[in-house]
């Protein structure tokens, strides 16, 4: 057997993981990178097939585990969340935004269009427009930002802003072993 086929065989054994960033700040993904050297151990068991900071994959491929960071705040987020549910066996909500609404949902207390006006008007030149998302190119903001489970079924929640890197690693390892991660006590964070 050649060395290459060995590697391929190993690839096939690994649990595939896809991560997506919805209406989030990428803070959860940054914290994921804080697993640091542990990532080297982690990729022995998992194959990260999509993750915007690690892998050059723009879509939502088929995967055993699908992880989402961020609230569902625009129409694209809905599509991505639904694709994640469709393409992945287990769906994980990473962070306070996806699990519990988080800081991004602070916009819910304001009128969407007024907020966009306020944010963009006067900031740029005469050529620029307020991105209401009525045209193609920019996804339209939903009326409210909502946590993931208001759109799709979520199997595992890892709250925290962001969750601790170790908790992310442990939960992923447990899922790769086919177990439900136990995140309780101090591992449950809300800040």
């Amino acid at each position, binding site marked *: 057997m050649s060395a290459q086929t060995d590697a391929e065989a190993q690839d096939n054994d690994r649990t595939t993981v896809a991560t997506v960033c919805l209406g989030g700040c990428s803070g959860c993904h940054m914290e994921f990178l804080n697993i640091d050297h542990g990532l080297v151990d982690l990729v022995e068991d998992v194959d990260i097939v999509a993750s915007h900071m690690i892998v050059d994959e723009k879509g939502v491929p088929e995967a055993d585990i699908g992880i989402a960071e961020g609230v569902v705040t625009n129409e694209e987020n809905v599509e991505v969340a639904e694709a994640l549910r469709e393409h992945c066996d287990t769906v994980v909500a990473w962070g306070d935004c996806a699990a*519990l609404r988080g800081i991004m949902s602070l916009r819910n207390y304001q009128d969407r269009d007024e907020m966009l006006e306020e944010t963009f008007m006067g900031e740029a030149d005469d050529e620029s427009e307020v991105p209401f998302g009525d045209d193609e190119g920019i996804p339209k903001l939903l009326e409210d930002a909502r*946590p993931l489970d208001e759109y799709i079924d979520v199997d595992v929640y890892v709250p925290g802003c962001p969750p601790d890197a170790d908790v992310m690693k442990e939960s992923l390892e447990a899922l790769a072993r086919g177990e439900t991660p136990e995140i309780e006590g101090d591992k449950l964070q809300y800040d």
Partner: protein
Amino acid sequence: MSKATQSEAETGVTLEIDGREVQARDGQTILEAAREAGIDIPTLCEHANLSNVGACRMCLVEVDGERNETACTTAVQDGMDISVDTDELWNHRRTMLEMMFADQNHYCMYCEMEGDCELEDMFNRAGLDSSRVPLEYPDIEPDTSNEYVTMDLDRCIGCGRCIRTCDEIVGNGTLNFGNRGRETTIVADDDVPLGESSCISCGSCVQACPTGALYSPLSAYKGRERDCEVETTTCSECSVGCELEVFTNSGRIVKIEGNEDGPAGGQLCEMGRFELLADGRERITEPRVDGETVDLADAIDRARTALTEANGVNAFASDRLPRETLEALSETLSEYDASVEIPGAERAALESDVLAALEAELDVETADLLVDSLHDIEDSDTLVVYDTGIVETHPVVASYVRRAANGETTLVTIDDGTDRLERFADHSIELDAPTATVTEQVTDVFEAGTEALADAAIEDVVDVSLELSGDATFVLGPDVDDAETMVDVFGLAATSDNDVLSLGPGRNRAVADVPTDDLEADAEVAYLLAADDRGEDLDRQIELARGAETVIVQATRESALTEIADIVLPALDWFEREGTTVDADDDQRAVERVLDPRGEIDSDREIIAELQEVAA
């Protein structure tokens, strides 16, 4: 049931809690029995010194395998079989927590209480990682109308601790539930902004709140309580002598809280909890002479020369200072041709003259005329308050008065201005006559019966006299400064075998032991030991400074006074001082150093002592 009756009840009750046999006393709640046995039952709305209402349902326990009860409101019974830590009960608790989470806007990541929040701790214990209940996002405007207390109902879980604290501890009854039903919220008075309500800004509700719904902007985001060190000292703002628990982190004060095990039940007043922290004036760290920074030795030399060469010295000392500092000042001034004024000294002297005269005249012991302990006034059948200004000058005593009046005690208030306790008083006497006349009339009625007064207009006076048959306490406020009223009040107390609580304008009753004099009109030098004085005390010192040629000021912070001073010496701040203070019931209380001094000096007393060496 009161604590006293509980401890008297010795009837033994045996019950089982989570499989453990627990001995309890008849009348105890399941929660109390469990705590004594070291068994933890989760709670949120329960709080030290407050009545239990079973609002949060965290303490839900299963009784005899057949029904669920709140442990905080259910009395123990012999043979009870209690379960606390079951999956089913934790499911109930988690559901309650999810509803609390969904109903309001809890954003832990930027809440000032994050890390200290009891709700967050409970989320952790219950394993709340998502909400099965749709989130509400109610649009709630935080109430920032009060300078020191912010009410952000986004984080309120309706536990009612603040309401019970305001009612049961402070006796003010400002906070209440409003908009009953699904929209129930905490409201101040008739749902007015806190800053426009009857709130006295004592902050006791802030201390009691388990979440970040009530917090002080003075302490917000300064650090978590769990990362703080706590030092206790005595408040310098009035003669009640409340114990301050000062929380510090990295040499900075985070917040001040009251001692929940003390007689005041954790309450402090606006002055002790907030104003001590809110002094934003620039700190004086270096000595100055004529506006130029100089060495401490040079500044002291200049001050000595001025004191020595003066034809007379008018001195003033802050009564916020500990006894030892005032004594050091007195000793230093004895070397010079100096007179000294200390706030409260005049009243203390008058009081001691009156008491001495009465002792001789009526054959009573002074000690028998004064209350033993100032919180004992709550046990009086009748409280007669002369000068309701105590609401502002001695707020914690005012709360004892309100608590008593809310209970069984008859409250009589006598004031020649606005009656600040009118809504709590049974008789509010507002006569044009000076308060002395009222007392004199009460004395007449008390001694000779109602026939002594024919005038129906003074019905109140008759009522008061009749009330005096029980156990009464007379509270003398700071504005009573005439010998007549004092003789009458102490005399009435002596003849009716009752006690007086004297709350003079002085913050430290040790001033009675420091000799003071009338100031000289033409003294050339003013030596003003201002410390962190402000308000009226500072105004008085500015007046003295204006009348002098050379002004020596020893102060903690910059002010209009230090601006006009020729020689400025740094002084310690309240949290840097050490010594003792004497409170209104004559107890010595320790003033402890909370933080090391920031300025150039380590002790006010050393500087004062150095000034004693008269210039050659």
